[in-house]
């Protein structure tokens, strides 16, 4: 028989066997599909995890901050514009009102072989990946194996473009890289030990004067999982690109940072030909599946789009933010 636990403090929530629940937008469906069984540790009554605060010049998002709050928060919009744009484009208004930072980072893949009754795949404890040999129209084009479902967290794509630190109660502090590992164990969605709780993320200091954009390539206008998504953050000094961060999602079972693209941007003039040359290498090193080669073209286009869009944005404010009252 399933049980529900409603701990009333963070300490009480730690060390429990079961799956934590924040907004429930992912877990509720997985419960119905019996992909999640056993105890649910509902964080409803755990205080202190739903605040957006400045801490030592860095913006901190509590794990229970909703995506709607991230998208609408004036400091996020002003200082971390790519993150705000990313959060605003996820799912639907109804879901963004409930979905949380922690839940979005730790949600399970959306693969259509996984999210169905009687799923039999690596993620659900089976021995093979039916998408790899079956219909993988929406799957990875950087085949990092063994599971080929794209990483589902748009927020992770955006956070990878920032020097984000993941705070975990009951475990060490993580980076996104250490949070997700190398994806070699398809059974795991993340590397947190049982009983630990992701409590928040620190975004790193804002980059004064940055220009940033988020691009989500989809068929429909809204409310759709991305075929490819790109976050670009650029800092232009004089007419030279001083700093560049380009991360992509929808293309691999992890969010990826495109170092080769960044390398072709940094130190170059902020001109169209620079962006074109950099975007051209966006899919270098990709290993598409039989049905996902189209994503390479799409990825190059989306990276170019993000770079162009970023340079069209007004730079973020130069002055350091006033620390918020605590």
């Amino acid at each position, binding site marked *: *028989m399933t049980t529900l636990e409603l701990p009333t403090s963070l300490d009480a929530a730690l060390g429990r066997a079961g799956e934590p629940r924040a907004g429930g937008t992912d877990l509720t*469906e997985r419960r119905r599909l019996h992909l999640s069984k056993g105890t649910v540790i*509902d964080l409803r009554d755990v205080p202190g995890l739903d605040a957006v605060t400045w801490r030592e010049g860095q913006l901190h998002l509590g794990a229970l901050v909703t995506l709607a709050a991230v998208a609408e928060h004036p400091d996020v919009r002003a200082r971390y514009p790519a993150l705000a744009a990313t959060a605003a484009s996820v799912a639907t208004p109804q*879901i963004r009102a*409930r979905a949380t930072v922690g839940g979005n980072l730790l949600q399970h893949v959306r693969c*259509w072989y996984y*999210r169905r009754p009687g799923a039999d795949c690596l993620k659900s404890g089976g021995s093979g990946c039916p998408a790899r040999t*079956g219909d993988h129209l929406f799957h990875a084009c950087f085949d990092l194996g063994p599971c080929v479902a794209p990483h589902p967290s748009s927020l992770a794509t955006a956070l990878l473009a920032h020097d984000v630190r993941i705070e975990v109660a009951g475990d060490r502090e993580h980076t996104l890289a250490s949070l997700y590992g190398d994806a070699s164990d398809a059974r795991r969605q993340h590397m947190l030990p049982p009983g630990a709780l992701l409590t928040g993320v620190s975004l790193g200091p804002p980059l004064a004067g940055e220009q940033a954009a988020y691009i989500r390539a989809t068929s429909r206008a809204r*409310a759709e999982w991305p075929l490819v998504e790109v976050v670009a953050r650029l800092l232009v000094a004089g007419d030279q690109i001083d700093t560049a961060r380009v991360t992509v999602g929808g293309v691999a079972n992890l969010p990826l940072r495109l170092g080769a693209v960044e390398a072709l941007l940094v130190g170059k003039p902020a001109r169209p030909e620079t962006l074109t040359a950099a975007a051209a290498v966006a899919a270098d090193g990709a290993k598409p599946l039989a049905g996902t080669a189209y*994503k390479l073209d799409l990825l190059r286009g989306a990276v170019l789009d993000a770079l162009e869009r970023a340079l069209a944005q007004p730079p973020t404010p130069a002055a350091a933010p006033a620390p918020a009252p605590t």
Partner: protein
Amino acid sequence: MSPPISRRGVLRGTLGGTVLVGESCAPKIVSERAEAPAAAPVATADSPSQKLEFTVNGVARALAVDPERTALELVRSDLGLTGCKESCGHGACGACSVLLDDVPVAACLLPAVALHRRRLTTVEGLAPAGELHPVQRAFMAEDALQCGFCTPGFVVAASAFYRRWRAEHGNAEPDRDTVAAALAGNLCRCAAYDGIIRAVQKASSGAYEEPLGPEPAAPRYDARDKVTGAARYTVDVQLPDQLEGKILRSPHAHARVRKVDWSRALALPGVFGAVDLLHGGTTIRFAGQEILAIAAVDARTAEAALAAVDLDLEVLPALIGMDAARADGAPPVYPTRNTRKSAPNASEGPLLPLGWDGNLRGPFQLFSTAKHRARRAVQRLREQPAEGVLVEGTYKTQVQCHSALEPHACVAHWTAADAVTVYLSTQSVHAVAEDIAERWGLRRDRVRVLAQYIGGGFGGKATLQLECVAAVELARVTGRPVRVVLERREELTTGGLRPAQEIELALATDRDGYLQGVTARAFADAGCGVGSNSTVLLRLMYAKAPKDIADWDVVNHAPPGKPFRGPGGPPVFWALEQAVDVAAERLELDPILLRKRFDPNPARNRLYDWALSLKTWRERQPAQSDRGRHRRGLGLAVGGWFYFVQPSARLQIDAGPDGIVASTACQDIGNGTRTVIAETVAGVLGIAPADVKVQIGDSSLVPGPMTGGSRTTASLVPAAIMAAEQLRDELLERAEQLLGVKGVAVPGGVRHPRGVVTWQQLLAGSPPLRFVGTRKRDQGGYFLPPMYDIAPGRYVAGALQIVEVEVDTRLGRIRVLRSHTGVAAGHIVAPALARSQAMGGVIQGIGYALYEERRLDPKTGALLTGGLEDYRIPGIGDIGELDVNFVEDGYERVNGRSVGLAELVTLAPAAAIGNAVAHATGFRPRELPLRPDRVLQGIRG
């Protein structure tokens, strides 16, 4: 069957549109009642429950709930607030939107425990009792709805936007995109989006702060019940002691049933009975095929019981898709003559006997005309290309699912041993009641089928189907009311689909652009179903041209097709109307002028003249004018469709001191049946439509038409006119008797030398009057005489579609910017509703062209697009700007001068989009849907 058979009945007839496996056409129904059904296992002492305190619509509540419960279950079942609808079950459609502390959330993904110490508002609580929220008023007045099933969710989400917008912007009007962004979490399958946007814009700018005037508050007769959540759909029916039925489905696409034993399941507490749905068959032919159903106290118990069924299937190799079925040496899906007879009928009509060759059934070529001339014309141009223009190509389309937002649903209740009342989400209360009576051996007047509100149909709910068979038989065997509701994944599996097509089409003109012939061979993937014809519809187009047309079914181990709004139409017009445009390009002719050369059809010719007069058309840019990233193009396509008449259709008017009641055993699936009846009767008498009480959705009323095959308006309007005129004439006579002088009928009553006496005054002292109007045949008869109580009319209705698109050549996305729709379907009875229906058809066409695609695993045949997240119907941001123009001339010989347009309007949009993409980019698409990957590939060459 291994379980002991305690009750058994052999039922007659066949199941239209459903699946019969096995080798017999005389299905048997085997069912069993649990020995001693134990009480409910839920909410016992050892099952933990969670105490909640919260307010619902302003009222404080305290409840203990099962911790696994969702807010949706709590709201609908525990609180009985059924305005909140379950549809997709995973947060994609917004039909379950509720306000949590004034913020819209999806109740289906909200754990019930999250309500603790929060404020919950449902559609029922948006306004004080008896009053309306400004957004509700706007939805009524702007006709922002059709079937109404999604409406409460939209209204709830829009009310939050309204509040926020007005707080920040006062009376400023939000633009369309702002509204679309706020409502991106709500889907409407009828696609009443244009009205929704308009309603929200107007409400948010303060246009509906005051109560609506006395009359008319809304162009749609039943709008108020739909915007308030009061409209009760089949899924909302809750009878005392009602059980929940769940269906066990095959996980395999091809299997032999070795053993089914439900005895362990029946022994579980809370389980009441089971029914076999294989009807004696032993072969599974698609993944998701129904095997049996079990009724239990609730859904979870029924699901647990399904898991306890001992099911032994011998898994066999499956053929998924047409290529596998056509491959050399592919074993036949239907190996024998008897099994072929059991293939489900994917068409609307009776199946004609056709030959089989392995998995190919056909050719169906009865409707070729001068086929040798057509072939010669094509062949000649192959040999001598300079003699004219030959356009040849293969055009492919995908499987499209009906996916009405109210799933197939039935609640059956035996009120006596020989009498059953069936609440059913159906497009035909009358015909289904007859089928139930026949199958269960009941007198027709002992079967009552009720469907007050139906959450969309689109052709998928036209006949007696297995959810109804299961519910009726489970209710019979258990002696309790039983409800069976399909989940979204089931709905997307067996709820209905438009077959995929491969159409090889050739079109030959002479050097001057006169049509010499069309040849077409179509191969249909209706899964394991047969009868999907598309090329026959070419006979509706360019009538003088010779045509060699043939259809084949390619049967394979996939769910069977069903008739879907304009069956066969969108695929064949996708092929034909693009080929015509290619010919126009080669001839360097205006595509409209070329069509005028081809086309003697008077309805379409009126539309050509309208389109030629449009500024949009006159001032269109040359092809491929844009060379940058975003390229715009304008495309046009036309379509033609039958109208149908159901000769048995009746409309009864009862009049007396209590008023005027018009009734018929028809139903309203969002098409506006109630409104059409009220408008027509009111029009004859010159009174307000609201003064006509309309009763439908009940098979005990006089026979009415099925709401399908574009027949409702054409069948009912003449019957309504006849009955209303009889009433009018009777009251004229009565006035003469009372007044002693002859009067004349004027709007509202009878004028006589001394003044006017109203109908109401005349009826005040009248004995009850009853008149039954019938549907008289059209002048000159029909195209074909009535068969199976349906006759195709003599005239072909016309639609013309212009679409302006923008193609993003970088990200492969196509955006529809604007569409202009011309409709020639005679007199429009209810213009606001007709416009909404036409736009809905266009938007469904946009979905077909750009997004919708049912996908199966290529090896196992398992459904991959099992939810509305992966099966992508158009959203409110995908529609562009739309307008509809009715050209109402013609149809003088049609009784009532009104014909249907529901199917007509959805035929041409995909082809118009194809032509627009080619006009924008030079890429001539051949395969649907036009996904970004295909667009990028097409543009790069």
